[in-house]
């Protein structure tokens, strides 16, 4: 976390790298100006870590921890948290309840470690009363969770960090750049000479860096949902780690991974997540959105 960001010169651009949000993060800058690159890298690193500190559910003394430890008491939140909660609420509405930031407590019984450790139905049913955004009282700026409920902004936070950092960079720099926070990307403009950035889309079944495709990205966001290594296998049935908050069970026949390109990283992230939640109809859902996508 505290390790300093690293800046290296590549052919025609600067590559800055650091770790944040439990992922390797990168900033590629199509400029030769080193002091500028250093400044922008520091900016990106600071913003990514700020957002991580503020919204990670694994850290203490941040708004998310405060909300989750409210134990039925109302909690007043700051503007930025309120904006994210409003956004989560909208996504929940738009997805007709499929995208739900309260579904994280289901992980108490679901552990996707590749084993056959599928929980008993009673155990899942026992958790369900603590899942459901409609059970939360959210009247900006006050949020009240029922005791035992938790929110998790992990499904939004990284994409939000990418878009926010891109905005900060854009204020100081008008050239081409690519942000990559652990696979969630945003391109602020092409490389020198107008060439798009080449992004490799991982094969979800591969353990290494074997790539199934190269995506060209000049402007806009790209995000991937799905994780090949997180699943359960029992009696020949593969359980994906995408849980349906209304049933508490994995969405059947969900794709192993979905990659979407959209105007912002947040949109790409939401569309890919919602596609996964559509299970076997993921492809149909994405086709209706008229976006570029890769469904595996």
């Amino acid at each position, binding site marked *: 976390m505290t390790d300093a960001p690293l800046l290296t010169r590549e052919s025609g651009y600067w590559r800055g790298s650091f770790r944040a949000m439990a992922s390797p993060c990168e900033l590629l800058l199509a400029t030769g100006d080193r002091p500028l690159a250093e400044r922008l890298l520091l900016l990106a690193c600071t913003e990514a870590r700020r957002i991580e500190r503020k919204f990670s559910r694994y850290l203490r003394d941040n708004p998310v921890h405060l909300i989750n430890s409210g134990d039925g008491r109302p909690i007043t939140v700051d503007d930025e948290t309120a904006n994210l909660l409003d956004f989560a609420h909208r996504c929940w509405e738009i997805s007709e309840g499929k995208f739900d930031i309260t579904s994280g407590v289901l992980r108490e019984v679901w552990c996707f470690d590749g084993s056959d450790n599928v929980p008993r139905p009673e155990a899942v049913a026992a958790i369900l009363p603590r899942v459901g955004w409609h059970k939360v009282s959210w009247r900006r700026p006050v949020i009240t969770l029922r005791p035992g409920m938790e929110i998790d902004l992990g499904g939004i936070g990284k994409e939000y960090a990418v878009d*926010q950092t891109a905005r900060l960079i854009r204020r100081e720099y008008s050239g081409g750049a690519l942000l990559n926070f652990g696979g969630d990307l945003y391109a602020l403009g092409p490389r020198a000479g107008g060439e798009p950035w080449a992004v490799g889309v991982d094969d979800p079944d591969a353990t290494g860096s074997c790539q199934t495709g190269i995506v060209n990205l000049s402007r806009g966001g790209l995000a991937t949902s799905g994780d090949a290594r997180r699943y359960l296998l029992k009696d020949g049935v593969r359980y994906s780690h995408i849980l349906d908050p209304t049933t508490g069970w994995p969405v059947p026949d969900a794709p192993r991974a979905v990659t979407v390109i959209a105007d912002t990283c947040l949109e790409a992230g939401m569309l890919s997540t919602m596609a996964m939640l559509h299970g076997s109809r993921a492809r149909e859902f994405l086709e209706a959105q008229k976006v570029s996508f890769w469904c595996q």
Partner: protein
Amino acid sequence: MKSIRSKLAIATCTLLSQGAQQAGAVESSWTADTSYLLYSETDRVTVNKLFTSANVTLGDNHLLQLEAVYDTITGATPTGAVKSGGPVTVTTPSSGGKGYRAVSGNPALAKFDDTRLGLNLGLVQSLRRTLRINYGASVSVERDYEAYGGSLALERDNEDRSVTFTAGVAGSYDTIFQSSGGTPKPMGSVEENGGNPEFFGPGKKRGFEGMLGVSRIINRRTVARLNYSLKRLEGYLTDPYKVISMVREGIELRRFYESRPDSRQRQALYGELVHRLENRDTIRLAYRYYWDDWGIFSHTIDYRHRRNLLGGRYLEPRLRLYTQSSADFFYPSLPFGVEPEYASADYRLDQMNSATLGLKYGQPALGGTLRLRLEYLYQTFAEAEYDTNQALIFQASFKKEFD
């Protein structure tokens, strides 16, 4: 499958553009809604009313509501007497003493003016996610009327908050008197004792009220509610200024102060439906059936159609229709020799029809919302001395939220 992309784009845009202004405004902790109302009848009463209501959030579970109203009433109102009156005088609220100020020698209209100051205090307490309790207290003071009231209401949502049940009770205690201090003897003759009729002390009126209501979500574009309410009034229910003429062959012989029963039981069924049309207009339809043990029953239909325009502006035409039967003891005048226990010539107890046609306009302004409405009220009465009443209603309101 439907596309959600544009909705998502709007939500994302909202989030990211807000993020730019980190030190943006905190959500308001109080709102104020202030109105000016002009109610103006042709040649009769004019009311100027100024009122404001403030909602303050106290902590996370309490909402305090404070309402203040100040109004002035001037003009002339029907007394109940016939126009072709004789040399009789009654007191008026304005004069402070006795001596009836007839309008241009017409005893059927009395000039008056009065001011009223009213305060309502409310507290909404959220006990649980689905349970709220509302406490209310009110006081209103005029030169010739004082009213105190208290209320308590419980609101309970079902688990998915599609249905809300309401149960409420209220009590009131009013004191009524002429501005000179007393109340005339009911059915007392105005010209008794050489124009010094018998007066009693102030009248007292007690009210007890109960209400049961249910509101529910019908579908994605419709909500509805249904209320039943019962109110019992006891005590002095007479209007100390109203009189009734005894007439023979078109000539007024005597004039009495009116007299009403000392209890009244009012009941009402109220239904309201709000529906959003496919074209984004909103319609609001309310109906009330009312009946009481004075013999009045009435139907009220109130229809509003809100046309949403660009930029948060809207236009809302409105039509309200009302019809009522007359009270059992309503007489336009008393025939010679008939002196019933209860008699009133108050036009409000007559069989009547009212129609209100209006237009409201709303728009965002100065960081709040501005509403203007103009309405025309037309009333016809079956037998009362003045058989019509017409009025213009203008209201300007401004609501704003503060930090």
